[in-house]
């Protein structure tokens, strides 16, 4: 038994075939090990146990040596060239309109602070788009050049049928639907008769409305500051500038600090090309005008509120990755644009 040469034989093996033959030679049914076990029977009983253990050890050793040699052979085996740098299997990638992502992001940001998204008519009566927003007849926004009118019979109470030029018409609708507290956002298609590189006759607006007891300017500021930090980044800040809108008083224009020059207006001593002296116009906002509350059936001596209106397109284009020089590309359905998103 001591003269078994398995160590050397296994060591010298140069292929898996040779190893397999060695396995059969030693460990096969008619192999050497089994023969040795057979031989045990011829030994006296007291020696059988000792001998048996020894053979078992050799069996384990051979098994282990063969497995190890197999592993070594595999390692050194020369395989065909496998190019790992080739691309993976191609999976079809579709696309969503970039505004879909932007709107989803906006909704998520406001949902976290308890605002609900609603939806109101795009084809509206003048009353909801104007009268209810403190814009009486004769206001410039109401004329043919700012609003699309529909060929339809006038409503006795609500006036002409129009395509809503803003989402603010949802303010009165929301006040009719529920009484305060109101925390709503309304993102919808809106329409105005302009069509050039910076205007499309259909675009989106995003309206926020908060009405409750004791709502003041600091709440509006805080909410918009939160949105800006979530949407554009923690380092961005806002500023409020005086403005005029019929349906808010006081009214502001909201600017966000420029992400390129970080609000300085200059980069390396040169004027920032992106912004106006460090700031970008973002939205119009203000405290809901008492007449608007009244027309919504809400007592302005008890309740106050704030409202804002943004353009999701503008929000999108203010992000670093979306520098679009002709806004019409958003709605002309060109696959070369759409498939990028």
């Amino acid at each position: 038994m001591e003269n078994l040469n398995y160590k050397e034989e296994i060591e010298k093996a140069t292929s898996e075939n040779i190893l397999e033959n060695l396995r059969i030679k030693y460990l096969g049914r008619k192999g050497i090990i089994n023969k040795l076990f057979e031989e045990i029977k011829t030994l006296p009983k007291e020696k059988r146990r000792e001998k048996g253990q020894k053979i078992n050890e050799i069996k384990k050793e051979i098994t282990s040596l063969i497995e190890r040699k197999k592993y070594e052979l595999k390692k050194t085996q020369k395989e065909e060239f496998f190019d790992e740098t080739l691309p993976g299997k191609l999976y079809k990638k579709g696309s969503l309109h970039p505004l879909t992502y932007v709107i989803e992001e906006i909704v998520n940001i406001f949902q976290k602070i308890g605002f609900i998204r609603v939806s109101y008519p795009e084809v509206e009566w003048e009353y909801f788009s104007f009268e209810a927003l403190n814009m009486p007849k004769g206001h410039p926004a109401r004329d043919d050049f700012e609003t699309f009118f529909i060929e339809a019979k006038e409503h006795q109470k609500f006036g002409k049928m129009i395509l809503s030029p803003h989402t603010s018409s949802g303010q009165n609708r929301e006040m009719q639907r529920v009484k305060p507290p109101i925390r709503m956002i309304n993102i919808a298609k809106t329409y105005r008769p302009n069509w050039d590189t910076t205007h499309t006759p259909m675009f989106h607006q995003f309206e926020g409305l908060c009405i409750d007891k004791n709502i003041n300017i600091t709440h509006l500021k805080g909410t918009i500051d939160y949105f800006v930090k979530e949407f554009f980044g923690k380092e961005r800040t806002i500023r409020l500038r005086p403005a005029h809108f019929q349906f808010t008083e006081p009214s502001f224009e909201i600017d966000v600090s420029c992400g390129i020059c970080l609000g300085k207006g200059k980069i390396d001593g040169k004027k920032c090309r992106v912004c106006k002296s460090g700031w970008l116009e973002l939205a119009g906002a203000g405290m809901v005008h008492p007449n608007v509350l009244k027309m919504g059936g809400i007592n302005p001596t008890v309740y106050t509120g704030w409202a804002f209106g943004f353009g999701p397109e503008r929000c999108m284009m203010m992000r670093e990755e979306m520098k679009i020089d002709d806004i019409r590309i958003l709605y002309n359905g060109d696959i070369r644009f759409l498939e990028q998103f």
Partner: protein
Amino acid sequence: MNIKITYHWLLDFLETDASPFELQKYLSLAGPSIEKVENIGNDYVFDIEIISNRIDTASAFGVAQEAAAILPFFGKKAKLKFNPFEEYKFLKIIKEEREDNYKLKILIKEDNLCSRFSAIILDNVKIGPSPSFIQERLKAAGIKVINNVVDISNYLMLTLGQPTHIFDFDKISNSDGKSATMIMRQSKKGEKIITLDEKEVKLPGEDIVIEDGKERLIDLCGIMGGLNSCVSNNTKRIILFVQTYNKQKIRKTVMTTGVRTLAATYFEKGLDEERVEATLVFGIYLLKQYASAKIASELYDIYPHPYQKKKVITTFSFFQKIMGVDIPKKIIIKILNSLGFETKVYGKKLEVCVPHFRKYDINIAEDLVEEVARVYGYNNLPNNFSPPAQVFQPEEFEKIFKVSSKIKYFLKHLGLSEVINYSMISKKMIDQWGLKEKNHLKIKNSISKEIEYLRISLLPSLYKNIKDNEGKKEILKFFEIAKVYLPRENDLPKEEYRLGIAVNTDFFDLKGIFEALLLELNIQSFPFPKIVKKDNVFLVEIPLLLLIEKAKLLPKFRPINPFATIKLDKTFELKKDFAFEKIKEKAFQSPYLDKIEVLALFRNKLTLRFYYSAKDRNLTEEEAKKELNKIDF
């Protein structure tokens, strides 16, 4: 509206230690926004955005008034040097040396055209270049320099915020040479006037015009003067003409004729009638000084409804309620006073008298809060979250947004591209689809034939998407989720969300996409919508609500069957009355059938694989075959 004035122009009225850039920074936060500051020569040009209801700030003096109120709150010294409203009074003109040799015969035909009409005739005018400071300032403001008389007219507008017009008296005088007739009236539709820029304007009607009594139009009021009455190099006598007009009429004329001038932009905002007096007087001074003019008529001033003092009453606590912070009484009063408001305190109450130049934009207590808050500084107010409140999203909205989002992402991952099309389509698209024009809402004032009708189906747009993109990409698959607008009698249209899909591949591709979507939404059974084929395009459209109603968050759980499944293949010959649907119907009559798969289709030979199992034991192959054989006809 933007105007340009210079730093030194502003300093004619304002005494301050603020630099041009400090002015920009502080005024932008609390008053008119100075969008740009540009250094030219020894002066600086401000490009200023005028807030739409603050036309009173659209001048050097107007900005100076704002600056005098705002700058001290930013630690800068500032006060008004000179107030033209107090200095330039008609009274002074009346006292001056004058010869009333000439006359105006003025007739204003209707009440609502002109709230204040003032004019004076000046003689001995010498036309020449205007002084260099006027030339430089006008150039900085982006206004063409012409001659002393015209330049002074423009200079008045940007200095005091009130446009003026100057006529050549002799060009419109009556045969006596001593008088001129001015009839202010509304234009008749189709009347024509050749304006200063030598263009003929055909009037839409109801525009404010002036006729010279000889049926000749000499002024398209508030917008541009007539060529027939304009100042030229030979002009000797002029009429200095300062008016305030009905703002709606001016705007309508601008929008319908397309003739827009800076003057019109002022008038359409509605001007303060009190400004007319100072402007006319300052104009006479400038014309005397720089065009050697002499007063040659009485002063005409038709002002039927003079300014009445206007009061707003509020409480001090109201400022805190809206601003959210406690503002000391004396700060509130200081701000209001510095903006020209007179204040009286009655305990907790505050009575505020509105200055004439703010009479159109200050009406209620909230307007006063805005004045105090902006000068106090919005940036000095803290940022707070709105207090939390329990609000519930209507289930209908919630489902629409949730399911739409799920559908969008799923279709995207299947390789489709989302598109957002205009809600409006062309007549051509309606015709192409055999739809009826009268079933669509039509836009009365559309700006293009492409967008005249509100769509009642998404398919024409999606079809167009495929056609427009042919040649750009081989395989095209689009979807859109959007509203269609279904007209209703005497009501707003029904706005219905739809899902539309269009592909240029084949029928079964589209059918497969839709079936996969149903699976994704865990919809068990669904009446399959009709797939439309137009040329090489396959399309489908359904109301989103149908999917929303049936969509489930989780599918119904089925216990895993531990018993064997027998798979059997069989080939059928398809015929009209023996289509797949029929085979399927028959096959599922077996209680053991789990599912059917299509293996191959060759001509009309269809090979199917059937999966049979029992829920309580292992089914034998013989039993399964028996089930399968039942399908034969």
